[in-house]
């Protein structure tokens, strides 16, 4: 079971206006089947663009090149119709802001139902039954089916998003900072839920975050991005405990730790640049 479900080769993303600027610069990585890979980085490091390019949701003003192999099929060369077949069914995505990604004028039951109906021709009553099962799976009482998003709390909304993304048993789940907007106790619940579902449904996960604490909790493998490039990758304990790249080391020095009273050391960019040049 060590097959790569997703393989990205030499992916670059740039603007159409100025072809010299690469927002994501020639990155390659793979996601192992049944494992969680975390992409960590600061704002502007290109982590979200990488995620969006995998389900081809990049803004039309951006251009990408390279190869994205999902189960050995190149996503980059698919037509809009083919990729639409994949979205939701094989590759699902959860976004950061649960309020902006749900439709405020439709009930959550309707929205989950829609996600299933797009990819299946089950009769209505079977779909309804499936919606109820999904809600139970993510821990929302079935009576909330006819609620609108604004009647739910932030954590519940994110659970609805997870239910929608799980609706077709995707093989790969891309989660773009799914817990950043939530309270810590809710965050802990959602992380546990995602991890449970992952093992229950044998799914792979590409998890994007900027929080090293979250990485420690959920990741099997870690990729660190800096200015559009991958600077470090490896197994989670190795990257967090024995980082090799100067940027990873510097970044870890800024993270307040959960247990002790480690001294925080802000990044000294001049030193960092020198250390990177020496590599």
């Amino acid at each position, binding site marked *: 079971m060590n097959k790569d479900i997703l393989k990205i080769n030499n992916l670059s993303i740039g603007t159409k206006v100025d072809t010299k600027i690469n927002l994501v610069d020639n990155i390659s990585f793979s996601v192992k089947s049944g494992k969680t890979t975390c992409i960590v980085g*600061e*704002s502007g490091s290109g982590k979200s663009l990488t995620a969006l390019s995998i389900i081809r949701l990049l803004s039309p003003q951006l251009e990408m090149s390279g190869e994205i192999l999902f189960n050995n099929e190149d996503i980059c060369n698919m037509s809009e119709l083919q990729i639409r077949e994949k979205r939701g069914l094989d590759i699902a995505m959860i976004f950061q802001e649960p309020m902006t990604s749900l439709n405020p004028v439709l009930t959550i039951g309707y929205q989950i139902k829609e996600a299933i109906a797009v990819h299946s021709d089950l009769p209505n009553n079977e779909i309804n039954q499936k919606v109820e099962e999904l809600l139970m799976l993510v821990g929302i009482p079935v009576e909330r089916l006819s609620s609108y998003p604004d009647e739910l709390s*932030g954590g519940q909304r994110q659970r609805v998003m997870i239910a929608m993304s799980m609706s077709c048993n995707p093989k790969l789940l891309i989660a773009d900072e799914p817990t950043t907007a939530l*309270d*810590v*106790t*809710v*965050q*802990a619940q959602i*992380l*546990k839920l995602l*991890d449970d579902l992952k093992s229950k449904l044998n799914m792979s996960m590409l998890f994007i975050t*900027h*929080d*090293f*604490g*979250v990485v*420690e*909790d959920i990741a099997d493998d870690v990729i660190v991005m800096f200015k559009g490039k991958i600077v470090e990758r490896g197994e989670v304990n190795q990257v967090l405990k024995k980082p090799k790249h100067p940027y990873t080391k*510097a*970044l870890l*020095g*800024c*993270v*307040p*730790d*959960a*247990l002790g*009273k480690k001294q*925080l*050391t*802000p*990044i000294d960019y001049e030193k960092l640049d020198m250390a990177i040049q020496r590599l």
Partner: protein
Amino acid sequence: MKKLLQTNNLSKTYVQTQGFFSRVKTNIHALDNVSFSINQGTTMAVVGESGSGKSTLAKSLVRLVNLDAGSVKFNGVDLLDLEGEKLKSVRKDIQMIFQDPYASLNPRLNILQIMEEPLLIHNYQDNDARRKKIENFIERVGLKASDLKKYPHQFSGGQRQRIGIARALILEPKLVICDEPVSALDVSVQAQILKLLKDLQREFGLTYLFITHDLRIVRHVADDVMVMRHGKLVEEGKTDIIFKNPKNQYTKDLIQSIPGLISKRN
């Protein structure tokens, strides 16, 4: 140690009306008999989830929210009784740093104007003296005097937060209320800002009321901590003691939820 701020039974109730015709009224206790005190020169952290009343507490201390009951003693003066000129002079001593550096700076003013405003309100000396003071403070927070001509959109989030800090400190306050000052920032910038706040505290002998939801940060900045839930103070004490030996179940749950502590795969 001298107590800079002492509050007694602060209470604030918001009334929420539901339904268009029925007008069902429910009371929300944003603050429910909260009493605490802060020693001069120390940092008190307030933790709690959204809706726990942390921000209402902060706003009530700068009199942006009117309390239903309770008393606030600041530096020996009863804050809630003050009016007019007296209130204005005390306000100089309590300043606030806000969460969102994008929303708390006026986009139509340049940095010089933003920083000058508090000085003008409090009739600080003449033009030259003001200018000198502003240049002093902007350099103290790590920006250049030449940045004063620029507008907020020309700065990054971390730089904007520095401007917010400089603006709060320019009146040389005694108490600074920091409402989630680093929540919107990247970890690398967060570390810079936390260090800056700590250095400034040492230099000016500041007292901080530090509102946050991140318990990892609490450990790094705070001497004392109070945990709030549904407007009530559930636990209060020295940071080290509370982290080592939390008494209240809710505090235990919060500490358990710190990312990086959840024991993996069980």
